[in-house]
């Protein structure tokens, strides 16, 4: 058989469970809604970095699973998160991306979050401190203590990232949620305060999981001339991919040969604490977060799913808060040369997932998306994606390869091989 007709194209691949997924998981509206409800509303998300909220009364706004969220630093310097929704008539309280409440707003007094609509105001702990013309309108039937903001779970953890959960009942800390997946970079990120030096965002017509997949698999280094020429040696092919509870993965390090790319230079002069020069680790956290440390610069991707075929990706670059001017500039240049919007790799990655997004649509003949490479859990193994989709299947109770069926736990690969051998009568 060479090319295939409809039946052949739709036949179950001759691979084991978990080694392929149905493209419907990347395009189906109902599955997308299910994901927002059962995954994104239930988990911890690192919505920003504490260096974006340096001073008391500073704030940042964002969206988590369609919910408008505001993160503020109180005068006690504690970072708290709230729904950015006014308890009066549901207006979004803060419309700016960032700012500081030390200055008053047109409807409100300094040091309060004031809703512009009817001027109800709230302190940095979410307590309502003013209902305008309260006595005239509510007499003694309603008072401030009954109309506080909706507070959300919030933790500052792992190099100063601000984590938020919409789920009051999450029952686990960020550390427990990470299940050891952050340990590999914790010494480098926790040694001293970090600072964001880069931020940009992209809205891409593809499913958020396609971006996460691309961050999880390195087989696609064929896409990147830069990575082929600076990698693709024995040490590169020995890099380990390892899974952690909760669908998170790590990609192990090696020494990148930056000199091999014409016009590029070794980055040994500058690294992160405890990170050997030119090394490169990656953490992909379920359901859509990536920490990527290439020697001198840390990158963090945060996905905000907007629809089955639309994702906003926020890209942050971080260095050490104590950086000299020169070191900071070096980190910025290293970061941008690969990961900026004009960088060598990022544009290529985004092109590839755009291509996937445009080929998958809800009414399409199913595409069996193959995640079947096994290379001893090294860099071109696709175990990272398999690990992710096992967790995804469990949480949604849908089989990733047949999302209309219930999830069945994956047997270990060795068991699968044995089953296959037995079935073949070997």
């Amino acid at each position, binding site marked *: 058989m060479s090319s295939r007709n409809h039946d052949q194209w739709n036949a179950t691949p001759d691979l084991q469970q978990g080694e392929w997924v149905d493209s419907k998981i990347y395009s189906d509206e109902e599955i997308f809604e299910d994901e927002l409800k059962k995954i994104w509303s239930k988990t911890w998300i690192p919505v920003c970095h504490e*260096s*974006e909220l340096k001073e008391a009364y500073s704030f*940042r706004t964002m969206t988590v699973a369609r919910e408008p969220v505001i993160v503020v630093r109180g005068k006690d310097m504690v970072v708290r998160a709230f729904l950015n929704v006014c308890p009066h008539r549901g207006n979004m309280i803060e419309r*700016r*991306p*960032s700012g500081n409440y030390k200055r008053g707003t047109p409807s409100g007094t300094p040091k309060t979050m004031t809703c512009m609509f009817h001027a109800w105001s709230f302190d940095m702990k979410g307590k309502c401190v003013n209902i305008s013309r309260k006595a005239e309108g509510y007499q003694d039937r309603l008072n401030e203590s009954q109309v506080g903001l909706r507070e959300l779970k919030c933790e500052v953890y792992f190099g100063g990232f601000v984590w938020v959960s919409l789920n009051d009942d999450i029952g686990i800390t960020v550390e427990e949620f990470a299940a050891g997946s952050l340990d590999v970079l914790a010494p480098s990120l926790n040694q001293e305060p970090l600072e*964001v*030096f*880069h*931020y*940009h*965002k*992209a*809205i*891409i*017509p593809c499913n958020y999981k396609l971006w996460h997949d691309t961050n999880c698999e390195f087989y696609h280094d064929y*896409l990147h*001339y*830069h990575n082929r020429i600076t990698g693709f040696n024995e040490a590169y092919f020995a890099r380990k991919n390892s899974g952690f509870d909760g669908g998170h993965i790590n990609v192990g390090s090696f020494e990148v040969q930056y000199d091999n*790319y*014409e*016009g*590029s230079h070794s980055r040994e002069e500058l690294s992160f604490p405890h990170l050997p020069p030119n090394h490169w680790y990656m953490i992909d956290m379920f359901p859509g977060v990536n920490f990527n440390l290439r020697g001198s610069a840390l990158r963090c991707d945060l996905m905000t799913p907007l629809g089955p075929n639309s994702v906003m990706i926020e890209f*942050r670059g971080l260095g050490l808060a104590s950086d000299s001017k020169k070191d900071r500039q070096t980190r*910025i*240049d290293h970061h*941008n*040369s690969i990961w*900026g*919007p*004009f*960088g*060598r790799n*990022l*544009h*290529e990655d*985004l*092109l590839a997932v*755009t291509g996937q997004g*445009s080929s998958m649509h809800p009414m399409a003949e199913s595409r069996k998306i193959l995640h079947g490479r096994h290379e001893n859990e090294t860099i071109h193994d696709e175990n990272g994606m398999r690990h992710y989709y096992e967790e995804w299947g469990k949480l949604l109770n849908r089989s990733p390869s047949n999302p209309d069926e219930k999830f069945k736990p994956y047997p270990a690969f060795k068991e699968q091989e044995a089953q296959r051998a037995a079935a073949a009568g070997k």
Partner: protein
Amino acid sequence: MAENKHDLKEQVRELIYNTCIHLDDHQWEHWHDNCADNFNYAIRAFSPEVQADIKYHGGDKEYMQSITSMLSKHNSDQSPLRRHCTVYRVEIAADGKSAAAISSLAVYQTQLDGINSHVDAGTTSVFLVGRYNDKFIIDGGSIKFEDREVRLDTRRLDKGTHWPI
């Protein structure tokens, strides 16, 4: 001198406009030729999200030459970018040895292969808007770029590009 200044201003304008054609048409060598050896290039934008000035791209002349010389080895969106530029202000230094200019810039992208070419090819949209903040060295009859800052208003570049702006 007054007349000479007027001529110099005209020459600076001409250089900015010619450079737009060079960049539009990927005549990278012509662009590099018109940059001084100590040339510096940067694309920057202020991010109201993190309240900081962000450098997106850039480096010295050698770096920009390596960027353009390596393009053919990279997978890229080949959808053409076309600049619309208006030089707003040119200032010639009193000694006549340097100049500075501010130009308004819009860059349009006409889809070719960036999405689904059957549907999207031929569609033009605004890729970015911003300004060129340029500095020049004037040496006898020759004017060269010493510094170019592309100051962006647009901060959603989505897929981005490999091409200098």
